[in-house]
């Protein structure tokens, strides 16, 4: 961690980057930190408690500006960065990625391929919380699952924290912000909440890397990240990609070839 901090301080002092996005100690747990000078960078920390997906900031032009910047990235952030590269939201010359590997060594990545090779070593695994809830849901019938999620949806009040926390929700005009036609009703009600979340899940197909940011952000405790995680787990083998890594053949729902395996469309 100290090596990462020192490196960040050096990068800012040398002027190699104009900004380092990382983590600092927060009230109860680490929180994002924007270092625009080396003094601030001395507050940087990096350990297993740092879980916020900092990739959510890299597409915000008003924050990162036009110059080169760096991000300290745990594995979940790395996966999102990869997906953003594939979706043409990032360019290699603008972003420097710092991380600390499992043996405590500082790693620095400049190219997409370097990040990709590093990420490939890590298998996507469910954590304890995910396993507990998903195992319960997997034991339910379809009707029971619908009831479970509709009950969760009754709590949603359409704050869109899930959308705001997701690094892949970078659309300048979200589908719910279109009112001609009004695809999704903006007020909270169990059915319109379900419409929103199903819609978001569909927009996440083949893109979500189950970082859990949406579920963590939800103020009313809906495990919304499990919907897209389970979708990722189910669809990866179906569409032939590795969960957590961008599909080389393109996004599951936005590309189609004549020799695709799927039978349902024939």
């Amino acid at each position: 961690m100290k090596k990462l901090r020192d490196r960040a301080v050096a990068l800012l002092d040398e002027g190699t980057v104009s900004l380092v996005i990382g983590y600092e100690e927060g009230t109860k747990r680490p929180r994002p930190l924007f270092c625009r000078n080396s003094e601030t960078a001395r507050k940087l920390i990096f350990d297993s408690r740092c879980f916020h997906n900092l990739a959510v900031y890299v597409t915000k032009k008003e924050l990162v500006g036009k110059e080169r910047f760096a991000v300290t990235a745990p594995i979940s952030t790395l996966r999102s960065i990869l997906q953003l590269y594939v979706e043409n939201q990032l360019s290699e010359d603008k972003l420097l990625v710092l991380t600390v590997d499992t043996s405590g060594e500082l790693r620095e990545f400049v190219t997409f391929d370097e990040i990709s090779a590093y990420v490939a070593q890590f298998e996507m695994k469910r954590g304890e919380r995910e396993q507990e809830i998903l195992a319960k849901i997997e034991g339910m019938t379809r009707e029971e699952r619908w009831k479970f999620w509709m009950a969760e949806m009754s709590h949603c009040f359409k704050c869109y924290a899930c959308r705001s926390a997701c690094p892949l929700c970078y659309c300048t005009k979200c589908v719910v912000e279109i009112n001609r036609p009004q695809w999704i009703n903006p007020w909270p009600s169990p059915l319109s909440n379900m419409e929103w979340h199903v819609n978001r899940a569909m927009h996440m197909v083949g893109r979500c890397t189950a970082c859990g940011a949406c579920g963590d952000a939800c103020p009313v405790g809906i495990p919304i990240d499990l919907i897209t995680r389970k979708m990722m787990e189910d669809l990866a083998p179906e569409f032939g990609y590795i969960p957590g890594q961008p599909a080389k053949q393109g996004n599951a729902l936005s590309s189609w070839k004549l020799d695709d395996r799927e039978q349902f469309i024939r």
Partner: protein
Amino acid sequence: METKYISQGGLAQWFESIVASGKRVYAPVNSRGQVDFKLVKKLSEVADDYIQTTQSIKASVYPKAEVLFTYEKEHGKVNLTDFDPDTIPETVLWKVHPCDAAGFKPLSAIFNWDSADKLHNAHLVKTSVISFSCAKADESCFCTSVNGSPGNTAGSDVQLTVLPDGGAIAEILTPKGEALVALLPSVFEADRGDKKEQCLVDLPARFSLEEVNAKLNKAFNSTVWKEQSERCIGCGACAFVCPTCACFDIQEDVHGSKGRRIRCWDACGFALFTLHTSGHNPREHQSQRWRQRILHKFSYMPDRLSVVGCTGCGRCSRACPVDMNILEHITSIAKQ
């Protein structure tokens, strides 16, 4: 205003009598890993070991989605059906904290500013608040910095201060409180002279409102807004869990020739909030929206409505995914 003593057994009996009276009783309940107000029938359902509920009780007088009126189009004519206040049931909120009860004042100030909001007032009239003073607090609480306190009775109809023996000091504050007590007056015994202050948590004030107000009046162009808001993701959680945030949206729920005009919660933190149809957005940066949030609560509301738009409940800080700790921010502004 009258002070009485009620025993632990008496509390349970009184609770039952309120439920039995047919009023809807909402109380904090442990569910899905959070504590939130839910409809309850038994005292055993009420949660015990927590500091604060995740959401405020503002939904009882300002629902997250509410029908303003309904309409029906027929042969070129339109028939309107107004909101009917008689459809609101009598509601009792049990075990509200003083910071939440105090939140009714800024909320109602907005809804009754110059013109009276019929819907809000209809809810208010049918709602009674039984608050419990606070013996505990956490690092996010700061009621004492915003004209509040762990034993503040503002907004409460009855306030209970739990005593070591499980009974409570009962302060009966309003006619609504008296009416609730009248459901089972026998359990209310004479005041034993217990000292309320000894049961309250000690929460020193962290900043002075006057100092903050004075600093804020000069702070519009300060760099502090950008610095403080960089990690804000504009999610709206803070506004939605806040007991005093009242900003709303008005939308149309259309079903063929019938429809409902609906009011639902909105937040000044959303990018769309001030967007003009022309595409011009006066607050296009998150830092401007963060500034609006703070100034509105701590500067504009005190100026225009003589009430602070914050009760120090700390929910916004607890709910924020990226730890936008409002206490931290206000304290740093006060120190500037």
